[in-house]
């Protein structure tokens, strides 16, 4: 058997795990490891310009593929810079393995140079973490890290490696374990058949049902099963922000996103429903509005792989612990084997009601001003890319507009920081996707605020030739903050205005990329077609949009699902 150093074992174990790219930034504690990376060419390292970007690249790869991405950062500041990215992945249940360098074991606890207690700092934002105690355990720990990150409810795992665990002269027998078993970790995937039967009977007798699905359908690879079940039942489907693409956005049965900025028809349907089938969604506060007023007439079936998500904020009448894919499959089998049918008359009148709601307020915005509306830009993006692009969003109004107006027909194409709401996520996320899907259209939908939080990565894009398309909705203000200030603080725009924006076109040109400025809607289509036709170039579209626009609908705080502002002057 071959003898490898700890550093070589890390790289070899990543290779044996099937990792193609790792995203990282070197430093003192990682020098042995970087030397081992240099001496092989099976695992390619992408050098970012800030560790946060490395974590978002790894995260976005995971969101697009379902497999854990890998980030590599040094001890101390390298590790702390990765914290935002780890928290982002944790909040959205994204599998990721973050390898952090650590000072030599004998220095731990002595406030050594670039020492930080990364296991401690990351503890509340990881699914699990490991600190390497002996070099021999490296292959097994890495195998376990991937297993934990990717199974059950996915999440980030930190592996902290003291420098002396990677010493080149200390060599050990290397063997990559084929399988790992943890006696304390066996996530349930198969749902309880009795509970599924009970839920199925409720589905069959529902009169005003809604299927409400979240990120669990995307990361749980359950989109096909969801489509099959929903279409066989002819039930309306709404997706959470994390669940978009789980059900085709252009299908008649899709009633839009729900929640704070959900569609009128989705929020109305939820409020008036008599049965909610929740799949891989967690009744987050951005969905439910006031929990005590949530959907007063609805019974709730809740399918989730994480038992702790069930009945956490909203009590489930029928809890089903299991993987979305397997539970939905079981429901499809029950449906195929039953002679019962749903109440067609009730369902027809439910659809009539939903269509009326859709007719009244569905996906509408005013185009009365001279200025371009951000919604128009997203609609154009959807048109130019045929609803087929990977859309990697930053955080703010543009994110909500992208969620509302881009028609996602496939899962894993909408890449955004839903739970943590991390500004600066979009560009590195787009890079992570583009690198792994070089032939796909990859757009970063951003604003002039968010893009500046990781704009240094334009340099990484140049180095590795990552021709993403940056769609910057430039409203010269922190739009979502400004909207809340308009609505709740009598338009006192405290610190939400950006007075010193760079000339983005010149800025990206200085990095060797292409910049296009668009001021008029009439120029938008041609400019966007041009941007996407430049297959080999990163294009930054600096698009001037109406700074006064708000995102609507918007739920009225502490109200029910159906209490919404529909425009600046209209509410339900």
């Amino acid at each position, binding site marked *: 058997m071959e003898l490898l150093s700890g550093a070589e074992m890390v790289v070899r174990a990543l290779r044996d795990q099937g990792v193609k790219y790792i995203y990282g930034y070197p430093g003192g504690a990682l020098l042995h490891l970087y030397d081992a990376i240099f001496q092989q060419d099976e695992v390619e390292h992408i050098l970012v310009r800030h560790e946060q970007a490395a974590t978002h690249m790894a995260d976005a790869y995971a969101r697009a593929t379902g497999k854990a991405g890998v980030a590599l950062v040094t001890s101390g500041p390298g590790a702390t810079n990765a914290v935002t990215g780890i928290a982002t992945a944790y909040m959205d249940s994204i599998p990721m393995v973050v390898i952090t360098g650590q000072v030599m074991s004998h220095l731990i606890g002595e406030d050594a140079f670039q020492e930080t207690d990364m296991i401690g700092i990351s503890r509340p934002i990881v699914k699990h973490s490991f600190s390497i105690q002996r070099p021999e355990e490296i292959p097994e720990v890495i195998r376990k890290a991937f297993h934990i990150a990717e199974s059950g409810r996915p999440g980030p795992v930190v592996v902290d490696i003291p420098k002396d665990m990677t010493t080149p002269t200390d060599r050990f027998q290397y063997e990559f374990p084929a399988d790992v078993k943890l006696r*304390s970790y066996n996530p349930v995937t198969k749902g309880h058949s009795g509970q599924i039967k009970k839920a199925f009977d409720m589905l069959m007798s529902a009169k005003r049902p809604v299927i409400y699905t979240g990120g669990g359908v995307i990361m749980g690879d359950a989109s096909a099963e969801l489509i099959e079940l929903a279409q066989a039942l002819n039930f309306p489907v709404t997706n959470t922000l994390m669940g978009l693409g789980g059900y085709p956005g252009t299908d008649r049965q899709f009633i839009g996103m729900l929640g704070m900025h959900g569609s009128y028809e989705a929020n109305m349907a939820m409020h008036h429903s008599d049965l909610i089938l929740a799949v891989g969604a967690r009744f987050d506060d951005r969905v439910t509005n006031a929990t005590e007023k949530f959907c007063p007439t609805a019974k709730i079936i809740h399918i989730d792989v994480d038992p702790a998500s069930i*009945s956490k904020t909203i009590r489930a009448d029928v809890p089903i612990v299991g993987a979305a894919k397997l539970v939905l499959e079981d429901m499809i089998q029950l449906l195929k084997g039953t002679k019962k049918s749903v109440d067609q008359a009730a369902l027809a009148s439910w659809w009539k009601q939903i269509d009326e709601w859709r007719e009244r307020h569905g996906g509408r915005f005013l185009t009365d001003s001279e200025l371009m509306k951000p919604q128009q830009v997203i609609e154009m993006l959807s048109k130019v890319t045929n609803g087929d692009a990977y859309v990697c969003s930053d955080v703010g109004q543009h994110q909500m507009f992208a969620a509302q107006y881009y028609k996602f027909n496939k899962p894993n194409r909408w890449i955004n920081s839903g739970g943590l709401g991390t500004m600066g996520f979009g560009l590195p996320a787009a890079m992570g996707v583009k690198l792994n899907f070089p032939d796909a259209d990859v757009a970063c939908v951003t604003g002039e605020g968010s893009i500046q939080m990781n704009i240094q990565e334009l340099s990484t894009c140049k180095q590795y030739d990552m021709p993403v398309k940056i769609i910057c909705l430039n409203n010269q203000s922190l739009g979502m903050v400004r909207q809340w200030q308009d609505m709740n603080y009598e338009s006192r725009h405290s610190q939400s205005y950006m007075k010193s924006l760079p000339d983005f076109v010149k800025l990206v040109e200085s990095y060797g990329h292409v910049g296009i400025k668009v001021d008029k809607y009439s120029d938008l289509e041609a400019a966007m077609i041009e941007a996407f036709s430049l297959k080999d170039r990163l294009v930054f579209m600096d698009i001037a949009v109406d700074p006064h626009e708000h995102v609507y609908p918007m739920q009225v705080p502490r109200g029910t699902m159906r209490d919404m502002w529909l425009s600046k002057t209209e509410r339900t």
Partner: protein
Amino acid sequence: MRHIISVLLENEPGALSRVVGLFSQRNFNIETLTVAPTDDDTLSRLTVTTVGDDRVVEQITKQLNKLIDVVKVVDLTEGEHIERELMMIKFKASGAYRAEVKRTADIFRGQIIDITPNTYTVQLVGSSAKLDAFIDALGTTNVIEVVRSGVSGIARGEKVLSL
């Protein structure tokens, strides 16, 4: 309602901090906490007493179960169980008060484990309520120091918490 939650935990570095961290992170309350290795030296047994309604306690047990280092969790208060806590309590004791401490300790089946001319140290084992009652019986005026171990618990009958 007060709950006694017993946890079997991998005897790994950092495992305890994950449990303690979970309670503060999720805003759960800890009244007492004890932890020690078991007969199987790869496992620790941890006992937490907490106060919360059913919804909170359900979340506590579910979130504990989610920790990778947690092998098993049981809410002992859901069934018949025995709880014990150890207290060592030091009194300023002179004159007639010495006899009163001794008499009360006897009634509570406590033992005097250390004596000086001016102090008595009493050891007492029982439920938390019994320890509270002992302090109430003697009053706090002459108490100099109290050390309590926190609660340990075990299910009655044949039920066991093991692998």
